[in-house]
């Protein structure tokens, strides 16, 4: 019964994407038909137009609108690229094929649309996201996959050739890549009652080996550094669809702290997008205070680390929970950082046996 409803949602989403793209095409087409140079408006992505929304608990774009006008010869090329990107995305989505940013860059050449470099084509895709208010994954353009999920979650594929086939994500101990197929899959069911996202692939593997998913009844996700947007969206879905609490486990330094923050509150770069954040997710460690409490092996903070800490101190996303400011201050005080693996000084299983239970209890 639930599965039917979800199917409809997925189907709706897909037709919404296709019709948005088609609408864009009609807008341009009609302007040409009426004898005008076509133009497209979109929210500005300049820094002064990126604001933090405390209610949504993420960055959003402000009121400022920019016009992409094909009449202005410096914009004509970019405008054409944008229309091409829409056409290409429509083709991908309607044929249910996927592509990567790199692939887009090369595919353009088949249409005699040459991009100067990868950056130019990436920017055009971001423009398209902004115009439509959809993320590129919605129109089947994916980054290179590197993050993975493991645990008792059953999904049903919707990709061509696999429609309706189900998979339990405990079936492969290296985890299953969070790629296009998994991103577009429907969630059938899970017995887990929490999600643990882990910054590093090595530790993710350790957790699988140590049966953390069983011991803590958790779904494990390897973010492999900064979590890709597909992964952030995946985490959000687990949180929303199954009401699972999300715990994020990173290195004990400003960079790790920010990996957690992006999963929670999103990034400024994705201010034009929604549904990539999980505002209720918790950063469970490694905290600066953990470094002190567990007497972890450390490295001294470097100049860049301090600079970053000062930036984060002022960042509106770090004003939401007093935990952030407290930990930033502690980092600044102890002038040290520690990696997730640092717990191994107490033996390979210490982190699972001692640290995790303590922290899960603490962050609840």
């Amino acid at each position, binding site marked *: 019964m639930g599965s039917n409803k979800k199917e409809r949602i997925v189907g709706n989403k897909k037709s919404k994407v296709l019709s948005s793209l088609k609408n864009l095409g009609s807008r341009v087409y009609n302007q040409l038909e009426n004898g005008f140079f076509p133009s497209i408006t979109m929210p500005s992505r300049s820094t002064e137009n990126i604001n933090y929304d405390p209610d949504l608990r993420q960055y959003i774009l402000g009121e400022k609108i920019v016009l992409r006008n094909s009449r202005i010869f410096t914009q004509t090329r970019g405008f*054409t690229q944008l*229309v091409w990107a829409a056409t290409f995305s429509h083709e991908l989505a309607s044929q249910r094929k996927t592509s990567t940013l790199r692939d887009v860059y090369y595919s353009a050449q088949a249409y005699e649309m040459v991009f100067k470099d990868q950056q130019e084509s990436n920017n055009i895709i971001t423009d398209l996201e902004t115009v439509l208010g959809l993320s590129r994954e919605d129109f089947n353009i994916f980054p290179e996959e590197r993050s993975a999920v493991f645990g008792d979650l059953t999904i049903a594929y919707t990709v061509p050739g696999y429609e309706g086939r189900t998979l339990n994500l405990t079936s492969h101990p290296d985890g299953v890549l969070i790629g296009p197929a998994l991103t577009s899959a429907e969630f059938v069911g899970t017995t887990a009652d929490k999600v643990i996202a882990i910054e590093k692939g090595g530790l993710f593997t350790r957790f699988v080996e140590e049966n953390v998913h069983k011991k803590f009844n958790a779904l494990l996700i390897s973010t492999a550094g900064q979590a890709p947007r597909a992964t952030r969206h995946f985490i959000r879905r687990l949180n929303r669809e199954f009401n699972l609490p999300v715990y994020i486990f990173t290195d004990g330094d400003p960079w790790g702290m920010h990996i957690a923050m992006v999963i929670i509150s999103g990034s400024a770069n994705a201010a034009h997008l929604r549904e990539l954040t999980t505002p209720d997710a918790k950063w469970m460690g490694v905290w600066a205070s953990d470094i002190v409490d567990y007497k972890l092996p450390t490295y001294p903070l470097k100049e860049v680390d301090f600079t970053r800490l000062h930036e984060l101190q002022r960042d509106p996303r770090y004003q939401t929970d007093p935990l952030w400011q407290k930990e930033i201050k502690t980092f600044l005080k102890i002038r040290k950082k520690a990696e997730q693996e640092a717990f191994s000084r107490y033996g390979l299983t210490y982190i699972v046996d001692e640290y995790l239970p303590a922290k899960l209890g603490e962050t609840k």
Partner: protein
Amino acid sequence: MAQQTFQEISASDFFYRNRDIAGFTNPTRAIFATIRELVENSLDAAETIKVLPDVYVRLSFAKVGNQESQVFKLRVEDNGAGILPKHIPSAFGQVLYGSKYTLKQQRGTFGLGGKMAILYGQITTHQPAHVTSSTGTAKIYSFKLMMDIQKNRPIILDRRVSTNKGQWRGTIVEFCLEGDYLRAKPKVLEYFKQTAMVNPYANLTFVDPKGRLYKFTRGTTSMPDPPKETEPHPYGVDVELLQRLIQVTPYKNMLEFLKNEFHRVGEITAQKFLAFSNLSPRKNPKRLSHAELVSLMQNLKKFEKFLPPDSSCLSPLGEDLLKAGILKELKPEFLVVHQRKPSTYAGHPFIIETAIAYGGEIPKKNNFVIYRFANKIPLLYDEASDVSYRVINSMNWSRYKVTQDMPIAIVVHICSTKVPYKTVGKEFIADRPEVRREIANELRGVARKLQHFLSRRAHVNKEKKKFSVFIKYLPKIAQFSTDLAGKEKIPDIEKLLKSVRKFGIE
């Protein structure tokens, strides 16, 4: 000092001994200077009777010599006025020959160029010169001549008269000389090219010793008005000239002498001047002592009430002809020419004509190509010493959005009854303040026009570039949006393209 030298040796002897100063420095220069002097005489001969010049020059091997210097036979034919038979021996065999000392703009200034060339030929080969000429009468006169250098007199070796069946008019000069053509070749060819540029109404033909034909065909049939002869202006005379004027004048008193032998001196001005310099109007000029002569010359320069010389004695090329010549030889993308109002220096009237040409066959170098002309002759040596070169190099070209690496040719033509050459070799113009100022003002004017052209061209290029963007991408936008909107018919974008096509773009 020059005066004393003239008293001691003959004029031809003097120039024989000092041939370097007339441009016959070495075998290379000798070939160049010889061709140049004779071509210029021919052009003058045609222009005085308002005939479009046809000049044929042939240089051939006369005798095989060593590598450095060979004996050549030079033949120069023209369709000019021709020379009366009684004048032919002196005109070609006597240096500084001339009956009356009037001034007009001429190519040769010293009246010795052609003779110097023949003299040089005689010195180096000991062979006579052959001169054939007719003024268009029933007879053609041919002379075989040599020059008595010590006495400055022509020696007639042979004289023939033939009937002029074809009513031919002109002069043919043929003689041998030693020289180095191989080295002179680049300058000789450049000389012809530049001569063609500044004499666009002339046909020039040159056959070199290897039999190669270089032809410069006229690009117009209009000619500038020939210069009028005029008396020297008081500000411009020196003791030497005064002496010569006194020698030839038929007037027996100072008042008449001044009135008739000087430019822009009338009865009243002459009287005022004589009062100013304490000379009796009745004094016979031929009786002036040397000291009086010197003081007269100084007073002529000091007296402030002489009217400035007028420019009727000048024959500038004119903007249209200069334009035609440059278009013909450089085929530039852009050309601006301008003629300045007459001006004077030291009693000599002069006119500056300039041109700036851009693009076309003008090469891109690290410097501008500079073409210097004086009285319609190209100046090919000592560029860096020339006043034009200095003016051009001291100008702030960046003000005109011009850089030295652009394909730009600058033409400066000075016309004067007395071109302020620095040397007898007529290679470069002296840095006279009046001349420098005129050239500088003139160049600023044409440079501004070049700037307008360049900025307009930049504007057109920008429009072209814009248009090429539209023409490239608009059809794609139409195609993609048609596909994306799921339509059949591609929108017509011709109107849109037409609306952005600006005037001036193709």
